[in-house]
């Protein structure tokens, strides 16, 4: 069936956005939590260098997914847009502020302005995935009526939706931290490798707890999906997700970095596919809208498949080129002033042609600082989990 194939393409697009675009949002989250100007220099520099050349390409997956959604399933698209208008507007505002804040920070030279642009970028990196998560959570919980014409506040403030929002933030932070471990390792920056490994582990704990919370919350809101996830056809995906999460945690604990990024991405992809497979063939849970009865005419579906094939052929190798150049540190610099909010005194900005790259001197002192930090990060993470759990409990009892 063409509509099933297109459903798969849409889910693949969502997966790619989550795995690549999500990590860029997570980078903003770690930028937000990197602390004061002096202490946050080294991580902010690494985050900035890792995101800069790739975030726009990764962002396009969102647009691509939107287009496929409305082209293939226009009625369901309109229902989602009507019901969840408010979180979508808020996510959109976050997207605008994130992108422009990030781009502006690079060009600003005054420290205070850099801080303002950086805070805009970092804070909206937190807000955007949260509201996107509530949108997905509301859909999964079956709170989007098939013929919705009105926005609904209840739809996206249900426990499932809010949990999904927190989960998205945690998952973005998790992916970003794992990727940044790899980035730091490829630059030979041991201090940052450890710094982000600890954060990746903390985020893994939080994301894992929130995933379990969301899973059991689904028992109330969408029992069919819950059964399929825990004992039905979607169980293998849950198992893969769990194994990947544990594997990443263990590998980071022993300081292994090879292949960890791929495992982390696979784990997140398994969560997305678990959700998709669990609710298949229903498009909007809680309604009778399925992939086949909500779909566009056959010719449109075929056209989407053709565009997707073209994307694989054209966009795939282009991304491969971009990531491989990025991986070999061929991209960077340009005529930019150094990111003062992220670069220590004495570090002469990004290396200019012919000039040798210098390691930020502050990085040498980072381990002690980071050692003190590990406890506080774990404590913060634990506190966060407990708080979120308490909020959810309260809401359920109400």
């Amino acid at each position, binding site marked *: 069936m063409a509509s099933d194939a297109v459903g798969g393409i849409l889910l693949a697009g969502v997966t790619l956005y989550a795995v690549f675009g999500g990590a860029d949002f997570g980078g903003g989250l770690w930028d937000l939590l990197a602390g004061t100007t002096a202490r946050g220099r080294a991580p902010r520099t690494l985050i900035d260098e890792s995101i800069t050349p790739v975030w726009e*390409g990764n962002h396009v997956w969102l647009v691509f997914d939107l287009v496929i959604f409305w082209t293939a399933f226009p009625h369901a698209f309109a229902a989602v847009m009507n019901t969840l208008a408010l979180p979508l507007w808020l996510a959109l505002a976050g997207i605008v502020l994130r992108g422009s804040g990030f781009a502006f920070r690079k060009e600003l030279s005054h420290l205070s302005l850099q801080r303002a642009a950086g805070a805009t970028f970092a804070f909206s990196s937190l807000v955007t995935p949260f509201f996107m998560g509530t949108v997905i959570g509301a859909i999964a919980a079956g709170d989007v009526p098939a013929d919705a014409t009105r926005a609904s506040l209840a739809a996206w403030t249900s426990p499932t939706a809010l949990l999904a929002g927190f989960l998205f933030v945690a998952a973005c932070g998790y992916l970003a931290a794992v990727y940044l471990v790899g980035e730091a390792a490829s630059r030979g920056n041991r201090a940052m490798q450890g710094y982000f490994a600890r954060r990746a582990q903390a985020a893994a704990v939080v994301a894992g707890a929130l995933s379990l919370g969301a899973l059991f919350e689904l028992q109330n809101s969408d029992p069919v999906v819950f059964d399929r996830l825990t004992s039905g056809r979607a169980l293998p995906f849950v198992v893969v997700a769990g194994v990947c999460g544990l594997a990443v945690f263990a590998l980071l604990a022993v300081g292994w970095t090879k292949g960890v990024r791929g495992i982390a991405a696979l784990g997140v992809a398994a969560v997305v596919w678990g959700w998709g497979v669990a609710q298949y063939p229903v498009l909007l849970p809680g309604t009778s809208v399925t992939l086949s009865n909500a779909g566009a005419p056959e010719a449109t579906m075929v056209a989407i498949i053709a565009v997707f094939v073209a994307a694989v052929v054209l966009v795939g190798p282009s991304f491969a080129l971009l990531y491989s*150049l990025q991986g070999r540190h*061929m*991209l960077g610099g*340009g005529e930019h002033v150094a990111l003062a909010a992220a670069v220590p005194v004495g570090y002469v900005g990004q290396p200019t042609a012919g000039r040798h790259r*210098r390691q930020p001197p502050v990085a040498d002192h980072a381990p002690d600082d980071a050692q003190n930090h590990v406890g506080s990060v774990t404590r913060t993470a634990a506190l966060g989990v407990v708080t979120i759990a308490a909020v959810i409990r309260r809401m359920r009892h109400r």
Partner: protein
Amino acid sequence: MRASGEVLHSVAQMSAQVVPARGQMATTLGFHIILACLGIAFPFFVLLAEFIGLRRRNETALRLARRWSQAMGVLIAVGAVTGTVLSFELGLLWPGLMRQYGSVLGFPFAIEGLFFFLEAIFAGVYLWGWQRLPGWAHWWSGVPIAASGIFGAMSVIAVNSWMNQPGGFTEAGGQITSVSPWQVFFNHAAIYEMPHMILAAYMVAGFLVAGVYATGILRGRRDRYHYTGFAIGFVPAAILTPFQIFVGDTAARSIAQDQPVKFAAMEYVAQTSRQVPEWIAGVYVNGRVYAGIKIPYLDSLLVGFGPGTQVTGWNTVPPADRPPVVWLIHLSFDVMVGLGSLLLLWGLWAAYEWWRRRRLPPQRLFWWAGAVSGLAAIVAMECGWVVTEVGRQPWVVYQYLTTADAATSNGGVVTSLTLVIILYAVLGAATIAILRLLSRRWRRGDTEESVPYGPSPEPQNADAGEAGR
């Protein structure tokens, strides 16, 4: 009674969202379209500068390319996010349009998505590859940006032209039953809308670049750097201007056939008649044109090359199917044509001076015109969008779906419109401030910078990476 009252009430409520929703779409599209023009065409000018720099070993051109690509980085980022706003708004403001025709107009958007990918990916390579990619490899990495700008623009314009001349689908009982994607893409209006907009983008970008350096020259910075910057922007844009006027003229004639009511609003044709006069400027109120210049027979001449040509008036459709505020459509059209013609004359002036004396005109008026040429191109382009969008009203899909039926029934559009206006004002001001900051920084660095400048002949990271360890 009660039921009909409710229907009336809901219709009134729906309509209440139409005006703010249109206002918001106009604001966000009007803002984004400037960045879109730069996204489509500016990479071409950057690549042209780099090409000249590499081919002729011209340090000045290379320096310009490098600096422009830094500005391009900011503009592409802001353009990417403001473009995403429009994708969301199609669903958030116009769910009626997407529910009914999403499956039809989705295909061109999907094609656009492909080119948006290529543009964003290669922008990542080009913008950040200046230092470590070898010269010509770096140049080639920019070519897909310029190419996908053109093809992406074609795809988006395919959607807009389809809304003006819908086709390529069948509808039965309110459901879309079949779609021919390529007929949707290459609809009847696409043939003139696509080149019109792409040329407009090249004119906006070229004249903006020229304007920046013309301003510098006016302020006394008469150096090789400024003249090179001016010429790289000015020459392609000025060459394209006559083509644009030809395409625009063809488009107007096609609109007289395809969307006669829009054309009637553009030219103040109230009654279908022959020997129709052309109105230059003027405001139409209650059947009279005030403060306009009337040129007898000219409209008929322009439409059919003869004074006896019949031109359709807006009296052919009931008042509810006519576009609102015809004077806005007419004046926008006149401003667009007027500014386009002035830009043509300005280009001809330079061409004449070059032909006779092998130099650019030294008169200050020429450089003053240069300083405002970018702004003029933007105003002309925005006016063109007012003509095509307001002129299509009350339809969103011409003769298939009204804008009122497409609009969201959710309240709060006035609030979101207000917030959007504030956010975009800040965003626009910040973007301009950043570009000015860059220009000031470059100017300060003019004396400090040392050559060699430009992409390094060999990748340099091998030793650089070692040094870090």
